[in-house]
């Protein structure tokens, strides 16, 4: 087991906060603070300098998007701290705002994803390690609402599936595992996709996520 992450949780629903704390603790992580609003989150992050902060979008006092704002400000002030924003609703707009200008260490997930505990914990680990995680639902919306629908039709179905996983922030290895194909084949697919869409090729997972999102953004 890799060494545990130091985690701050900001979630106003006690049941979710406690559940996450227990789950993460049991998996060997250290939840250094679990708070219920954006102000306390900022204090906890400044005090503990965790590896990653898990942040609910809607929190007191306004119950609108203070979580999103807090995540952006944390990322600006502490680029080394990963922020995973999760919410009961996801909006492409919020995702785009969150990912704009973020070189990595950012995640945006639907709260439902906690049901697949291991995947969720893995996503936290990836964000903490500087990776990028975008909810499959956001990617689906991006793909279906993209104004580049014409260019997207030039992709083969497999290439579309690969693009979706690329946009979710998966590495070539993870994509290969998902489709039970070799990483070499994934590399070929990715090169083909980027070539067809006219995107600059990149070996860096984060950069290619950003490129994909920017490309798909409506």
């Amino acid at each position, binding site marked *: 087991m890799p060494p545990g992450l130091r985690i701050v949780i900001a979630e106003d629903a006690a*049941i*979710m906060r406690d559940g996450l704390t227990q*789950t993460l603790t049991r998996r060997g992580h250290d939840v250094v603070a679990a708070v219920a609003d954006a102000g306390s989150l900022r204090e906890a992050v400044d005090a503990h300098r965790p590896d990653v902060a898990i942040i609910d979008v809607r929190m007191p006092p306004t119950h609108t998007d203070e979580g999103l704002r807090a995540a952006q400000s944390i990322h600006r002030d502490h680029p080394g701290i990963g922020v995973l924003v999760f919410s*009961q609703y996801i909006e492409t707009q919020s995702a785009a705002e969150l990912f704009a200008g973020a070189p990595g260490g950012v995640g945006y997930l639907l709260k*439902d994803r*906690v*049901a*697949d*505990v291991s995947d969720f914990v893995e996503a936290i680990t990836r964000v903490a390690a500087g990776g990028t995680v975008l909810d499959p639902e956001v990617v689906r919306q991006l793909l279906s609402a993209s104004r580049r629908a014409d260019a997207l039709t030039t992709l083969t179905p497999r290439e579309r599936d690969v693009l979706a996983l690329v946009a979710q922030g998966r590495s070539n290895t993870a994509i290969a595992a998902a489709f039970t194909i070799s990483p070499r084949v994934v590399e070929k697919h990715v090169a083909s996709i980027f070539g067809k869409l006219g995107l600059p090729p990149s070996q860096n997972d984060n950069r290619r996520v950003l490129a994909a999102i920017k490309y798909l953004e409506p």
Partner: protein
Amino acid sequence: MREQPAPPGRAYSGPMLTALPRPREHPRLLDGALAVLLFSLSFGQWPSSPPGSVAAAVGICGLLAGTVLARRRYPVAALAAALAIAAVQIVFGMAPGGGGPPARALEPTVADAVIPVLLYTVAAHRPRRISVAALVACLLGSAAAIARWAPAQPPASSNLLFIAAAGLAGTALTAWVLGDSMAYRYRREYYASLEERAARAEAERDAQVRIAAAAQRARELQDRRARAIDESAARLRRIERDLHDGAQVRLAALAMTLGEIKEDLDPAPGRAVDGERTRRLVSAAHQNAKETLAELRDLARGIHPPVLDRGLGPALSSLAETSAVPAELRLACAEPPSPAIADMAYFCAAELLANVAKHSGAAHATISVSDQDERLLMTVTDDGAGGARLAPGGGLAGLLERVQTVDGQLDVSSPPGGPTVVTIELPRHA
């Protein structure tokens, strides 16, 4: 009095009448014709010479006939002028035994018939005191004329004298009576028109008041509609918030616990299932599922109490039965209100009973519902301490705003020491 144009619709407009000029509508024409007639009838009475006398006779007859033209505008002046000319005639033209040629020119003529016409005009269009004075002047003039004329008559002709006197006085009196009765008719028409105008003005004022009231009502309804829309939007937001913070987050937590259990039951090779931990997680998930159910039930009941499906009566009855303060229901409404109104009445009753339990210290409460014309009247009474107020921002004010969204009313009577009576009046249909 000025000639008023004939009101439309009163004049007969048959083909014959439209073809001919109508005297009433052409007063100048009529007066002109009269003047010409009087002047020309007097023609035979003028002296034939000398030219000076003829000219004088023509002038005097012309002046007399001409007064007719002024009668509508200046009736009194016209009569005065005619009487003055007549006075000159009496003095100079009726000298006993006749006179010289100048006196011949001043003898009375047919043109003097203008006097009764003018007297008629004065009587018809001027106040009675003036017309009576004019009548007296005319009678005196007649008397003077007779007195001046009588000595020239043979003594045996007293009969003729009497006829002449009676003729002059009778003509004057007849003209005056005719004119006066016309004045009476004019006055009556005038008053009638005044009354009609007043009635019209009053009707107009009434209409304006009604329009203002309608505009006010429209503004009120607009406000209430806006408030109803805001309220329903706020209500939807509340429901969304409740779902978001309640059931949704509970279900997410439940899904996470179940995810944990699923992974626990499928351990990595070489590791055993931790039965104790799994049992604990299942128990937590079970508890969580039950709490989610209860929360959803409460939320759904808040959106629409299912008991209302059985009607307002049974719903209020169940409300009274479960009230913290013993409550009695008196139901006397024949026709059930529409669902939205039943919802509103139920909601108000529930709020008011909760208020009674929280604030009044009452031992007993009564809900009564009855019909009042086309509206539903609900009163919630308690025997508590009283002192409830419709304070801005307070619970009762909130209720008032709520009932106003369906055009309802809420009144509070709550003297210190009680009892408190809250009266709510709602339309039968929203």
